[in-house]
C-alpha cells in the first residue's frame, strides 16, 4: 500500500479520539483523587486489588489444606521414632550369625 493509501486507512482506523472537555476532565480528576483518598484510608484494598493476590491466597489455602489433611496412617516413621517405638523385643531385630 502506498503512503497516501496508508494515510487514508490510518485516518479511518487509528483516528485520534476528540480530546475530553474541561468538565469531563474535572470529573475524571475528582474520581481519581477520590479513589486515592479512599486507598489512603484503607490501604488493604490495594492489596486485595492486586492481580496476584487471589492466586497467592488460593495457593496458600490449598497448601494449608494439604498439610492438615495428610492421612495419619501414611506418615513415615522417622529413625528416632522407630527406635523408641514399642515394636516388640529388641532381640527380634538381631540377625543371627551363621
Amino acid at each position: 500500500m502506498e503512503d497516501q493509501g496508508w494515510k487514508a486507512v490510518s485516518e479511518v482506523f487509528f483516528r485520534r479520539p476528540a480530546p475530553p472537555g474541561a468538565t469531563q476532565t474535572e470529573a475524571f480528576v475528582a474520581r481519581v483523587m477520590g479513589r486515592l483518598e479512599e486507598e489512603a484510608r484503607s490501604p488493604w484494598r490495594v492489596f486485595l486489588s492486586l492481580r496476584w493476590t487471589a492466586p497467592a491466597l488460593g495457593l496458600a489455602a490449598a497448601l494449608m489444606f494439604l498439610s492438615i489433611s495428610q492421612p495419619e496412617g501414611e506418615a513415615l516413621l522417622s529413625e528416632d521414632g522407630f527406635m523408641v517405638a514399642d515394636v516388640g523385643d529388641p532381640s527380634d531385630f538381631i540377625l543371627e550369625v551363621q
Partner: protein
Amino acid sequence: MDPSDLELVERVRSGESAAYAELVRRHHGDVFGLCLSMLGGAAEADDAAQDVFLKAYRSLDRFRNDASLRTWLYRIASNRCLDLLRSRARDRSESLEAILESEGGRLKDLLPVESDSSQAAENADLVERVLRQLSPEYRLILTLREGQGLDYEELAEAMGCSLDSVKARLKRARAVFEGLLRHLLQPDDV
C-alpha cells in the same frame, strides 16, 4: 508560569497530593485517548484510565526524573490496555469471515475517508470490530504511532524496547493490518 511535570512530581513525592490532581488534569486527554482507541468503549476506557493514574501514583517513586512523564504514563496505559485486550481475546468469537459476510458493503464505504464526524461515529463500531481482529500488540503499536502520534524514540520508551525493535514491529504490524484489509476489501480495492 505553570510548573513543569517534574516539579509537580517532586511536590507529590514530598507529600503534596493535590499536585497530583494537576498532573492527572494535564495528561487525562492522552491517557484516556489511548485507552479509548485501544478498548473501543468510553466507559471501559474511563475505568482503565483511572487504573493507570492510580498505578502511576503508587509507582511514582520509581519514575526516573530524566524520562518524560507523558511517555511513562503511556507505558503504564499500554500495559493496562494489553492486559484488558488479552483477557477479552480469550472470549473473542467473531471471525474475519463473519464481518465480511455481514458488513462487506459497509467496509467498502469506509474508504476513502471523509472527514465527516457523523460518518466516523456511525462507522465506529465497524472500525472497532475490524481492529479486534488484530493482535493486541499490533493494535497497540499502530495506535501509539498513528493515533497518538508518538515518534520512534517515544515508542521505544513507551514499549520498553529498542529503536530497531520498534521499527521492525511497526513494519510487521502495518503489513499484517494491510493484509487484513486486503482480505476484507478484495485486493484491487486497497
